[in-house]
């Protein structure tokens, strides 16, 4: 008979021992990927919670601003807006970035600028305790506005002149004074809302975003090592078309992941199995 018998499969090039070792490495990487995804989902939860808080804070701030517009002391038809901005204005809230890359990525802070001292020391962003100072100062402002003209405990002349200088100096002048000295309390409340969201929620949100980017980078790298990038290839290609000029760390990680995929002959289980594991 001319029919040839099927030949036995070729012996494996690797020994069972090395296979086991490979499985062990894959398991370890999978566990690490699971842990990273879990961490990422926690961050995502924080992000969505903070987003909601930010939206609520903006709503309150806009509401009080609208209230102030209705109670405007500027005259009929005038509103608190760009017409009154001071063209010499100087920033009184400054950004500070700390790089805690290994643990949290970038940590953003916004704080009140330190007023220059009499010695001429340089001004710069203040520390966290200034946030407390600001809030107490705002409360004092509210109270002082109410009691102004009723109780005056013989203020010192020097203090008066210092306050006068601060009012004149664009670097220290409270922006609320652009709109006159009789700003309604609603405008002060609005200012207080905006200040809080600028100093707290906005930098917190950016810090979470930075941390998310950091974890994303690690997830892409692990996926690359596990050969899981194919499942994301399609959406990646689509993304590539949409964002032709993508730059930065994220793009580099994805590029490396894509390159690695092209060199891989096969891929393991579907990556979403990792997500399912989280729910167990």
């Amino acid at each position: 008979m001319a029919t040839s018998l099927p030949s036995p499969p070729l012996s494996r090039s690797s020994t069972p021992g090395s296979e086991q070792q490979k499985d062990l490495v894959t398991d370890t990487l999978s566990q690490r990927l699971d842990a990273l995804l879990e961490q990422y989902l926690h961050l995502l939860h924080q992000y969505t919670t903070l987003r909601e808080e930010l939206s609520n804070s903006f709503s309150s701030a806009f509401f009080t601003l609208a209230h102030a517009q209705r109670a405007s002391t500027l005259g009929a038809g005038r509103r608190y807006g760009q017409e009154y901005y001071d063209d010499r204005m100087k920033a009184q809230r400054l950004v500070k970035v700390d790089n805690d890359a290994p643990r949290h990525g970038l940590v953003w802070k916004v704080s009140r600028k330190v007023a220059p001292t009499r010695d001429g020391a340089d001004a710069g962003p203040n520390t966290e305790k200034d946030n407390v100072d600001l809030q107490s100062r705002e409360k004092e402002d509210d109270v002082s506005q109410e009691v102004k003209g009723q109780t005056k405990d013989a203020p010192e002349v020097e203090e008066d002149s210092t306050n006068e200088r601060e009012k004149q100096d664009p670097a220290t002048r409270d922006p609320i004074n652009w709109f006159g000295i009789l700003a309604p309390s609603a405008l002060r409340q609005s200012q207080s809302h905006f200040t809080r969201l600028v100093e707290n929620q906005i930098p917190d949100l950016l810090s979470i975003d930075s941390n998310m980017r950091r974890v994303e980078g690690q997830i892409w790298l692990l996926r690359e090592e596990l050969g899981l990038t194919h499942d994301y290839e399609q959406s990646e290609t689509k993304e590539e078309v949409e964002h032709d000029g993508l730059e930065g760390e994220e793009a580099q990680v994805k590029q490396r992941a894509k390159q690695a995929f092209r060199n891989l002959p096969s891929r393991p289980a579907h990556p979403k199995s990792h997500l399912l594991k989280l729910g167990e």
Partner: protein
Amino acid sequence: MAAPPSAYRDRQFLAVIGDEDSVTGLLLAGIGHVTDPPDSQRNFLVCDSRTEKSTIESAFNRFTKERKDIGIVLINQHIAEKIRDTVDKFQEAFPAVLEIPAKDHPYDPEKDSVLRRVRRLFGE
């Protein structure tokens, strides 16, 4: 790779592109800054329905690419929608770009660039 301190050390200002109420509120919080003359530059742009797309784009590019003293760019989400391509193309870590709600345009998670990135990560 972590960004070197030189990439953000001098980025101390916030900038804002928004409608009049958003900008007024944020300036009340003390973020407004006009650089010294003769080349006085503002760190904000007030937009309304008549503001040209090119004006918004130009301000966004100025705040994100030209000026090296801006650390955070706040932009109303509905205004970012008008220049979506430009906003999405900007992927640098500095300055950070954050889309914020406006009085008449609440925050829409569907348009949030971070959440779109999350969906991309999970292959959706």
